[in-house]
């Protein structure tokens, strides 16, 4: 062993400064990017699954579901976008639980880093994956005949809204992941909760046609607001759709924006607080 055991203090350890939530967040984001690169399943899943959904819905159901005055493909795309990005946010939950299980959280917690950094990196990872999914879905959608019927600016707003909502939801999932602590349970629970949430909505069928209890649920379901907002911004609302009778469906963009602000302002501080108390095993 020829190396010095001690390191002359060239770079002395520094405390987390106000700027370091950004730099520390970038360091942990990079960690997640490396993971995406090394575990290609994630990327394969995030690209293949949306392609499959677009194809399934536009060819299998398109023939049998009749949307008055519109093509089902046009109708369905916003629903698929919303469902995919909401599911994409669940990675933060299972990844936080996995980090706890593997013990690396204890390493991070003994370093003088910003207490939000691991969460920032984690949720950024979801954002990136969801961004890739969005691009893939948009490309596939255009290939099968979906069209944006609004302005490019509105289309960009739609994409931003979908990604932002999913980003806020990642913070919720990260909090749940740290509370439940088991990656397997997180995966199962998110399927159990998110499937009804995305299917009992206006994502795949117009909610007017649902039986009353489901219709009420669907009208107040935040996913419905997200879908409606995206559908409006892409200009994909069927022309003969009756005027919705709930405020949230009449003002979907505003509803989603409020939802994003509420989720972030509750779950960002809650998650950071949780993070600074947890320890593996």
């Amino acid at each position, binding site marked *: *062993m*020829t*190396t*010095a*055991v*001690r*390191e*002359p*203090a*060239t*770079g*002395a*350890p*520094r*405390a*987390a400064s106000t700027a*370091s939530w950004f*730099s*520390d967040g970038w*360091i942990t984001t*990079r*960690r997640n990017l*490396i*993971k995406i690169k*090394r*575990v290609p399943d994630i990327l394969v899943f995030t690209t293949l699954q949306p392609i499959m959904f677009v194809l399934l819905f536009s060819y299998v159901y398109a023939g049998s579901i009749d949307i008055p005055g519109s093509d089902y493909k046009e109708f369905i795309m916003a629903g698929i976008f919303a469902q995919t990005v909401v599911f994409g946010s669940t990675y933060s939950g299972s990844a936080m639980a996995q980090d706890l299980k*593997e*013990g*690396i*959280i*204890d*390493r*991070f*917690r*003994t*370093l*003088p*880093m910003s207490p939000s*950094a691991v969460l920032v990196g984690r949720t950024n990872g979801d954002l990136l994956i969801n961004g890739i999914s969005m691009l893939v879905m948009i490309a596939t959608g255009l290939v099968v005949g979906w069209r944006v019927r609004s302005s490019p600016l509105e289309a960009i707003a739609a994409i931003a809204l979908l990604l932002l909502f999913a980003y806020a939801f990642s913070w919720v999932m990260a909090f749940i992941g740290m509370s439940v602590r088991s990656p397997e349970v997180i995966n199962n629970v998110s399927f159990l909760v998110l499937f009804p949430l995305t299917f009992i909505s206006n994502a795949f069928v117009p909610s007017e046609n649902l039986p009353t209890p489901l219709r009420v649920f669907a009208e107040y379901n935040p996913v419905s607001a997200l879908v409606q907002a995206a559908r409006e911004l892409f200009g994909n609302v069927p022309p003969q759709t009756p005027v919705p009778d709930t405020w949230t469906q009449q003002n979907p963009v505003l509803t989603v924006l409020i939802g994003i602000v509420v989720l972030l302002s509750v779950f960002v501080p809650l998650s950071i607080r949780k993070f600074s*108390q947890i*320890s*593996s*095993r």
Partner: protein
Amino acid sequence: MTDPVLDLISKERSARSARHSDVTGVRYLLHMAYIEAHDLAKTYTPKGAPAVHALDGLSLSVPQGTVTALLGPNGAGKTTAVKVLTTLIRPDSGTATIDGIDVQTDGDQIRRMIGVSGQYAAVDENLTGFENLDMIGRLYHLGAKASRRRARELIELFDLTEAQNRPVKGFSGGMRRRIDLAGALVIDPQVLFLDEPTTGLDPRSRLGLWDIITRLVAQGTTVLLTTQYLEEADRLADDIAVIDHGTVIAQGTSDELKSSIGGQRVELSLVSEGDSDAAVAILRSVGTAAPEVSSDRRTLAVTVANGPTALQAVLGQVERDGIRLHDAGMQRPTLDDVFLQLTGHSASADDEKEKAS
């Protein structure tokens, strides 16, 4: 370290018990304990199970520039104590400081000066050995260049050159452990916490780590480690704190602990078993308890208060009685005896998860 300082430290050590009550005034004068834990308590209440007092009034002091070993059976509270001191968990009550800085209220400052390797390796499975260490350096805010250089140095120091560019996922247990230990040395920590650092290491890596620890301490680092290996505590630690049921039941140097459980033993090994009755009589005259006799009646032993005097007396009488010996000697209790006596468990046995309650 100069002699006067060592002198102060040893004076300070003997004043240890008095110190808890008198913290502020003499601190700098006496080179007071660097790590100081006072009356720490932590109770876990698992669902549907009785409460576990993981820490139950644990007090500890570790002088600067020394190695202190926490020794105790499974479930004694060693890991919990380390977690409190490294800011990972908050105690229910009690205080702990490092260099006078409170671990509960000034965690940020503490985290800048410590290096930690926990009982279970805390590494990112998807990163390579190098990437793990580099990331730690950056999160200590050493900067990109210094982080990379330090990572390379540590890879070499811990003999991980062939493994540095492979994801940790494929590492053996010992290699993973070594990456984690290296993670504790990314900065030049003022205090190094090592929770069972040599568990899972092969003998060569273990010796390598001992060497690293010794060199760090020679340069002024304070080390708190936990271990199940008495040999390790004996060899590395200036001071040993024996922990059981969440509290320190004895603290001192290895020698102090050994003599604390009472004297030494005189042992005789006879050529002929016909002499055993006479030998037993001799041993009885110097012993503090009844002599023990082996089943073949040729090996005899007795505990004595003063080893050398007793041994001389025994050998004189043996000669006068014409008893022939294969061997005669004096033995001090081993740390294992200390452990057994203090805790009622043997340290080397595979204890069940023993819990304080």
